[in-house]
């Protein structure tokens, strides 16, 4: 499902920084994988490259059999739009939109009609247990509820790949646990491939596979 081959990512600046240094990784369809490592180890950069938000300096990325190298920005956007869902640490909800509008936003970007998009958004908000909060603005929701909205948004087109960048990092322990349970449940029910970047050993331990990174390299790949 996800194939990374000898990925190198360097950031140019006053001093050159190598964030990824020859990473090779294959994730099968339907896997739930956690990526762990200290700050600066390259895990978020890896996730951005998998999600098509960033491009590697060298190496090959393929998602669902489609190679990302050499394709234009618009094509990359379409892959992101149709195949990848993101869950961010800081939720990244638009503060002026209600929960329903936030979840339906990606569908409007795909040109869906208002009624169709809202019907899907309601369904997803029900799936994450927020059917009673659909007209609330993000500021009227708790941290856990905001992350549930973000998850519902990430699932809006039922993408085959779900990427989470510290999805529990901004939540207290019990809410984090709830969110993780939700992600695991959705993974089991929808069969998506899920990749989660985390600092939390508990989160990592709950995933069947854990990849450990250090200094831009994979130093451990454990399957349970």
């Amino acid at each position, binding site marked *: 499902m996800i194939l990374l081959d000898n990925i190198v990512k360097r950031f140019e600046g006053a001093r050159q920084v190598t964030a990824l240094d020859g990473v090779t990784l294959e994730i099968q369809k339907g896997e739930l994988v956690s990526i762990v490592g200290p700050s600066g180890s390259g895990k978020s950069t890896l996730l951005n490259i998998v999600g098509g938000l*960033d491009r590697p300096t060298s190496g090959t990325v393929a998602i669902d059999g489609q190679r990302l190298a050499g394709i234009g920005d618009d094509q990359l956007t379409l892959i992101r739009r149709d195949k990848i869902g993101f869950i961010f640490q800081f939720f*990244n909800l638009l503060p*002026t939109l209600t929960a329903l509008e936030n979840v339906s936003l*990606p569908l*409007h*970007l795909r040109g869906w009609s208002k009624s169709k998009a809202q019907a899907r958004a309601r369904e997803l908000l029900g799936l994450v247990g927020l059917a009673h909060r659909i007209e609330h603005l993000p500021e009227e929701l708790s941290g856990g509820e905001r992350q549930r909205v973000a998850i519902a948004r990430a699932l809006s087109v039922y993408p085959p790949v779900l990427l989470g960048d510290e999805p529990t990092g901004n939540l207290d322990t019990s809410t984090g646990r709830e969110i993780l349970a939700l992600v695991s449940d959705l993974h089991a029910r929808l069969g998506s491939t899920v990749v989660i970047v985390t600092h939390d050993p508990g989160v990592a331990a709950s995933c069947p596979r854990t990849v450990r990174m250090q200094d831009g390299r994979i130093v451990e790949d454990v399957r349970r």
Partner: protein
Amino acid sequence: MMLFRLISWPYLRKHAVRSLLTVGGIVIGVSVFFAMHAANQSVFGAFQETVRRIAGATDLQVSAGEPGFPEEVLERVQELTDVAVAAPVIEAMAGTGRAGQGNLLILGVDLTGDRGVRDYSMASGDQAVIDDPLVFLAQPDSIMVTAEYARRTHLGPNDRIQLETAEGSREFVVRGVLQSAGFTRAFGGNLAVMDIYAVQQVFGRGRRFDRIDVALARNVPLARGQAAIRAAVGPGFQVQPPASRGQSFQSILRIYYFILNFSSAFALVVGMFIIYSSFSIAVTQRRKEIGILRALGATRRQIALLFLGESALAGLIGSIAGVFVGFAAAGVMAGAIGSILHGVYGFSQGDVAIVPGTPLVALTIAIGVLTSMAAAGVPARSAARIDPVLAMQKGPSAMLSAGESRGRMILAVVLAGFGVIALGATRSLGWFYAGYLCVMLAPVLLTPVLAQRLSRILRPVLRWLRPVEGALAADSLIGSSRRTAATVGALMLSVALVIGLAGTARSSYKNIMDWANSALNPEFFVTTSPTLTDHNYRFADAMTPRLEAVDGIDQVIRMRTPRIDFHGEVVLLMTGELEKLAARSPFKSISGNPAEMYRLAASGQGVLASENFATLRRLAVGSVIDLPSPSGAVRVPVVGIVRDYADQQGAVFLDRSLYRQRWHDDSIDHFRVFLKPGADPEKVRATILQTFSADRRLFVLSNAEVRQYVAGLTNQWFAITWVQISIAILVAILGIINSLTVTIADRRRELGILRAVGGRRGQVRGTLWMEAVGLAMVGLILGLAVGAVHLYYVLELTFRDFPGMRFDYVYPYGVALLLIPIICAAALISAIGPAEAACRGSLVEALEYE
């Protein structure tokens, strides 16, 4: 549409004030454009309407410019078989002394033939004055007024009316009131008809006519009639349908159109910069939102269209509002055009109703929307290119990358280099304007880099003023070159445009006054009107010896300064006694031997051309020109080119002897009077008035009065500078409010930390105030410097393009100094709101920000 509702609308609503400011930018640009063009269209329309109504059934009009032509020309036209009616006409404006009623347009006609082209139905009075013209002729004090004028002034048949004539104020008797129809409705009804021979007498016109209105015989095609008349009268005459008189009107107003277009363009550029600034800041502020949208699958095109859609909406709302504001301002502008026409050319126009056509409204709205979209184009492109990863990272990203800075530097150097080469390498106007654009674009590109460097230079000063607040303010400016560039750029361009305009006003004022001091140096000007431009009344040559005999007068120079048609443009013919002028008031010679040029011109062997006359028509000493006269084309060489600012279309100086001989006109519109040494000016003035005022309309203007009049006219052209300075200040306020609002959003956490570690609200407030002043100073310094270059180009274009006048470079230090406190004060005022918002915000929320 859905995206617009979900993304744009909440943002626009949340930032309602900024949205209104953006719309305000468009309103400014569009309203000035609309007002100027609506006023112009309406004044021109009113003129055309007046011409059309007065023309009646006239097919062709025969004229020879302002000097008119001798009576015998009429016979040559009347003899033609293609001509059914040839009616002579004199038009003159006359004051009535009736407060609030304006001047009367006196139409001098020969009723014997004029009924063939105009309808003279009477509303009241003795129809016999029409039916038997001899009744009218036998009573030279007869006048007919229109029903409209009679109603307003409560005049009726046999009432008396005072008119200003060349013989002083005279009484006339209303013999009839004309029905309100046809030509009598021209000029708002402020029209009266007199016998043409009486008009010749009372307006000092001699035995001359202004024009002949011709109705062609049945079935004679216009072109055939035109050719026949041209052949009969010769090449010194214009034979045109009445509607073509609009060309002369347009030609006269060319300088006004030039300033009008320049001002419209200025207003639109300023409007564009306000929009550019607002959208650039919006893109910076909405960076994270854009990043999220991109991460969720929004394409670059969707992001760009989102911003372009917002700008189109702002453009549409601003344009519609601008049309309304412009409509209100158009009336004032029409008055200003009328004032210029009257002051400079002695034209009088009745009250003008502003009736903007649908095409102008549509064009204005289209320009508003397109301008807005064009201005938002660059920010929209930047938004579309935002990197989603960087956009969603914490903290501001307002610095330019090293690569982008280098790219901008290289492009700026290339553009500036091209501009300099284009300036020197060719005389082509196209290249000149392309170079001008490039030279002005170069500093715009460099704004982020220059703003950052200047902020670095300002840092010690701000720190010296307030160690903590100054350093924080300076660091914010240094670290946010991308954010501040839009505000600094808008302010820089606005200040530069003001400097350009104020400098042009200052340079032209200085040059024109220097010219006035040397060329208009007689002690007195004896004129027929309070100005030197109203030529309705003229003096007879017979008056000269009586004037020369006045005790205390050393020398009198007779001047006649009509405007004539020269290849479709109206130019000034300065005729006078050139030998005397050379001795008394020599012009600055630009080309040609001064002594020789005056000798040749005084003997009628050539003419002198003003510098702009020569520049506009690419003439040099030795070029031969054909001046149209009633006795045929006067073919003369240009024997010298002199600096003269008397007319925007240019002036030709020829000796009075040549003028009399070829134009058959010995009238005078003003005398230049030089006094004997030791003569008492007031006594001489009193003697002149005493000698002539009993039987003559006459004004004695002192040298100071004439120079004051010239200064007033010069200032009138440039009064608009102050409007533009106001716009510049408005731009400063809008830009700084925008920039500070984003600063606070970006620095909320930093300002929260400042307060958390013990910073007082006053210190936070001081930081933002200093940042505002720093921003203003950076924009000002760059603007004053770019303005110096801009002024050079504006002065070059007034020489190379229109009006072809060369003005020496004078930097407007006074305005520059004035701008410093004004812009700084504007910055402080605009900082009050954002600074208070920052001081009073929740500390906890600020520290939790992001």
